[in-house]
């Protein structure tokens, strides 16, 4: 590895002892010997297996649930429905005051997406749990569903989630997160060219090799040890405490070993119901997603739509940018209101634009609830922005890299959300990229700096 020491030499200490040196990973010896204990490697005598009965409909009213046949199935120990869950309606981000609580641990009266958990079956073997789950009879009244974000925002669209009362997340700023900077319409009016483009993405599944799950063991002192592959240990502990109405000191979470997460294991889905099963049966409980559940049930990255309208001058300056972003939360919030908000801050990109208008909507549809995944709220937006940048460069006949040098933010520039730029390094990164990719740009760009204008 080469360290480029000519950049930022005056603000950087060169007493680096670790960077550039290989250091053994502390977890590798366990991995190569098979000794690393993943949650599913815990096995307890008398452990029960939990399987979910899931909604086959995208949107339906539950008229009745009949578990009588399932209860008679050999090996079945306990069957749980909504009424068994002490605090059944929750939302993960309530811990940081982002409400309302909008999601049920087990569906109560209604299902809002295909795959939603309705009934939990606990049995002596995985097979018995699976077979009994198939014997649970649920009478559904199918309701109209909505799968498209713009359709969901139209008046008269089916209401996805009554806890919100409308098909978008209501921010303190209203129906969307808003950024207003300068006068975007005046910017368009004065621009040489205006280009509006629409970009759209589908949900993406993380597909970790280890599926989501947990193993819960009741301890002798009325505490429960939960071995889990959550990526969000304390979020999960605190939400489990709320859902179970159980003080946190009754819950002992053991984790940190995750067989691939990528953001897909930050939701609080398997732990509360498995702990409840262990509490009500007094026995250890294993709840592990099948591969099919991992692919179909676990939260994906949200589908997004990004509409970008830019005003650009022939000399390469972007003078106005208007962005409308839509994040498909699916039926429940999980982390999506936060993701959509991140997009609002991010959409100007690492560019200095004097007139900016941004609206980002977090929209509810009858699709699988989406949540975190690697830079969610930003990654799809970056794809859209950088494709847009290439299109703008082509429009004015300019080299796409030189076009980015002209618009790159530099220290002291005011960003659209009114944070002055500090510690920018985009120009230096692009200078290195120009060399590394053998994509030459004019000398004046190679002598620019993030520190000061006028180069």
């Amino acid at each position, binding site marked *: 590895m080469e360290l480029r020491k000519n950049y930022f030499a005056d603000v950087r200490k060169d007493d680096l002892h670790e960077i550039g040196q*290989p250091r*053994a*990973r502390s*977890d*590798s*010896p*366990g*991995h*190569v*010997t*098979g*000794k*690393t*204990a*993943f949650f*599913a*490697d815990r*096995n307890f005598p008398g452990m029960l297996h939990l399987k979910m009965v899931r909604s086959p409909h995208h949107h339906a009213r539950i008229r009745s649930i009949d578990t009588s046949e399932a209860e008679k199935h050999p090996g079945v120990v306990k069957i749980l429905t909504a009424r068994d869950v002490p605090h059944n309606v929750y939302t993960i981000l309530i811990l940081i005051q982002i409400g309302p609580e909008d999601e049920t641990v087990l569906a109560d009266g209604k299902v809002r997406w295909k795959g939603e958990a309705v009934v939990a079956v606990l049995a002596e073997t995985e097979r018995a749990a699976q077979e009994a789950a198939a014997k649970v009879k649920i009478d559904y009244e199918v309701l109209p569903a909505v799968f498209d974000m713009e359709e969901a925002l139209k008046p008269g669209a089916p209401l996805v989630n009554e806890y919100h009362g409308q098909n978008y997340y209501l921010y303190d700023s209203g129906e969307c997160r808003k950024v207003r900077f300068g006068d975007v319409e005046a910017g368009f009016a004065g621009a040489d060219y205006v280009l509006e483009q629409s970009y759209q993405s589908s949900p993406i599944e*993380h*597909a*970790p*090799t*280890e*599926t989501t799950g947990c193993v819960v063991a009741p301890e002798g002192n009325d505490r429960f040890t939960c071995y889990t592959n959550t990526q969000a240990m304390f979020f999960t502990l605190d939400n489990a405490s709320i859902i179970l109405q159980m003080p946190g000191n009754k819950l002992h979470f053991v984790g940190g*070993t*995750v*067989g*691939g*997460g*990528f953001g897909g294991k930050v939701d609080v889905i398997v732990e509360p119901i498995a702990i409840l099963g262990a509490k009500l049966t007094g026995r250890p409980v294993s709840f592990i997603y*099948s*591969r099919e559940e991992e692919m179909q049930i676990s939260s994906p990255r949200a589908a997004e739509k990004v509409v970008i309208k830019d005003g650009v001058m022939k000399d390469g300056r972007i003078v106005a940018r208007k962005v409308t972003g839509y994040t498909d939360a699916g039926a429940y919030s999980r982390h999506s209101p936060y993701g959509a908000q991140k997009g609002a801050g991010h959409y100007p990109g690492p560019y200095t634009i004097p007139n900016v208008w941004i609206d980002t909507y977090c929209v509810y549809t009858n699709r699988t609830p989406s949540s975190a995944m690697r830079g969610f709220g930003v990654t799809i937006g970056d794809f859209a922005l950088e494709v847009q940048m290439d299109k703008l460069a082509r429009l004015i006949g300019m080299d796409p890299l030189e076009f980015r040098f002209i618009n790159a933010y530099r220290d002291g520039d005011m960003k659209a959300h009114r944070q002055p730029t500090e510690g920018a390094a985009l120009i230096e990164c692009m200078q290195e990229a120009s060399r590394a990719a053998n994509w030459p740009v004019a000398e004046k760009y190679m002598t620019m700096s993030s520190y000061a204008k006028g180069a």
Partner: protein
Amino acid sequence: MAKVPVQFTLNGSEKAEFIESGTTLLNALRDKIGDTSPKGGCHQGTCGACSVIIDGELRLSCLTLAETCNGAAISTTSGLSEGGVLHPLQRAFLDTFATQCGFCTPGMIMAARVLLDHTPNPSREEVVEALSGNICRCTGYEPIIQAVLLAARSNSQNAA
């Protein structure tokens, strides 16, 4: 449910268990015998995390019924090091940073071991082919390929 007896050697030790007919070797090893080094990623033969060696051949333990393994010699990654000394493949996986989350690692090492047993000095293409049934969703394939090539080199140096 009726139980059937199974008897085989696991990493050189005699093992005997009564299992339900139809139990996979993966579940027998993990739940009955207590060797959790083979991992269950998909239980449908697509991810390779459950790979073990049966009588010298690489096999998916999630698609192998335990009762078909009577009299077999089974090897897993947990039995690879001898006397606390890491096998050259394990050493190479450490030295090339070929593990990330670690879930695919035991299966990768099994696949690599069968390759090196049959082909002590494989080409890069042969390594890629040998690992092609094993998914690393952290997508750290390049260091894994380097690890297998490094282990092959250190084996041939030791032999020389």
